[in-house]
């Protein structure tokens, strides 16, 4: 298999965007998926349940040192940073990065170091520019960079910033991202 992990980052509008993408993934989808959705510290289980409704795969909030596993959509818990190490996730309480914890950049950068060319990074709708540097790091380590088209993004700032930070990233309308990931998982 060419790819071994998909990392997705979203902020404002992410809930709906993630539902669209996850609903396109079949139950047998082979790639592990890790998601950072900007969320408030007080956010509870609701995000997990809302995404689960749309998703054939199990949606699970990550606990520290949990193994990276296929067949599961693994979600960053509120108020922790999500990092990647070798074959598992690690949590951190380092200060928020640009007011965000979990921050997309930390997931992307640490995943890039561990997975290099086997990594797919996806930046979705959002305000601010979290994920731009992270996606650049993914490209720099030989991984694939996908960006939601500003046309479909509820908030275009994050996709726009990601485009500016990368070179030759693949821009996709929201509805095409899920099917595109399915294709990648079969390579």
């Amino acid at each position, binding site marked *: 298999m060419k790819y071994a992990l998909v990392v997705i980052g979203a902020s404002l509008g992410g809930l709906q965007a993630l539902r669209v993408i996850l609903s396109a993934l079949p139950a047998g989808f082979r790639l592990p998926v890790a998601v950072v959705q900007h969320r408030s510290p007080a956010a509870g289980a609701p995000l997990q349940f809302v995404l689960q409704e749309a998703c054939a795969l199990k949606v699970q909030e*990550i*606990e*520290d*040192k949990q193994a990276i596993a296929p067949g599961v959509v693994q979600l960053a*818990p509120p*108020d*922790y940073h999500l*990092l*990647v*190490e070798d074959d*598992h996730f*690690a*949590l*951190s*309480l*380092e*200060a928020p990065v640009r007011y965000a914890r979990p921050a997309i950049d*930390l997931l992307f950068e*640490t995943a890039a*170091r561990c997975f290099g060319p086997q990594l797919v990074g996806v930046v979705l709708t959002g305000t601010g520019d979290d994920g731009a540097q992270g996606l650049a790091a993914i*490209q*720099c*380590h*030989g991984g694939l960079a996908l960006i939601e088209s500003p046309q479909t993004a509820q908030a275009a700032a994050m996709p726009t910033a990601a485009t500016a930070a990368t*070179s*030759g990233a693949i821009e996709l309308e929201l509805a095409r991202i899920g099917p595109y990931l399915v294709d990648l998982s079969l390579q």
Partner: protein
Amino acid sequence: MTSDCRAELELAERIEAIELPLLLEALHQRYGYDFRDYAPASLLRRLRLAMQAEQLTTVSAFQDRLLHDPACMARLLDTVSVDVTAMFRDPAFYLAFRDQVVPGLQALPHLKVWVAGCASGEEVYSLAIVLFEAGLLEKTQLYATDFNARGLAQGQAAIFPIRKMREYTANYVKAGGQAAFSDYYTAKHDAVILRDGLRRNIVWAEHNLATDSSFNEFHVVLCRNVMIYFTRKLQERVLGLLYGSLAMQGVLGLGHGESLHGYPVADCFAAISRAEKLYRKLR
């Protein structure tokens, strides 16, 4: 251009991968701090942040300064060991503690509680307040330990910036607090100092979870969001230490993102609250 940046990056990372274990070995030999089994991703980030603050660009240069300048080591220690936290952070944890742990503590003639990795003390004082409000603080001896002596001194001083009180008060209320949070401190200029009554029953001591052993038996042990910075191997060691420090029926409290699941000691505990990571030692 992409292939250029990639080659350069891979070389830099290869060199760093050589430098890092050398650095950790050096710190262990020089100062006795053992970071060799710290989770690599978060450790690397913190080292990089510390290097930026020192305006150094290589790990080797950092090692040079750390070995020869203890003040630099003290600064690194703060970066590695102190998370900015808040009183009653994770209000749901304290609510669960009040509702599900406190009732079982009432019957004990005296109570020993350990907060391991207490750093600046917010969690210790939050727990002291919960115990006070349950009428338990008088008969409790709290042990607050950390491997960072500066953090301990700060915790012991019980001084917090006044601008944080709004957040702390909101957390306190969400955690089931019924009193006025301001009853617990006196304000002076732009700081507050917690009242003596909260501070009296706390012993502050240096203890290093990575290297030291058990020093007492407790009815309650809290070790929250400390072990996330350890590898699984070190986590197993520390969990064994915490298990060995608990009386039978004693309660262990972990951080929200942590779990006993999948660890050997899990078999010795029953979950009091799976959601809030409270466990009781059964065997």
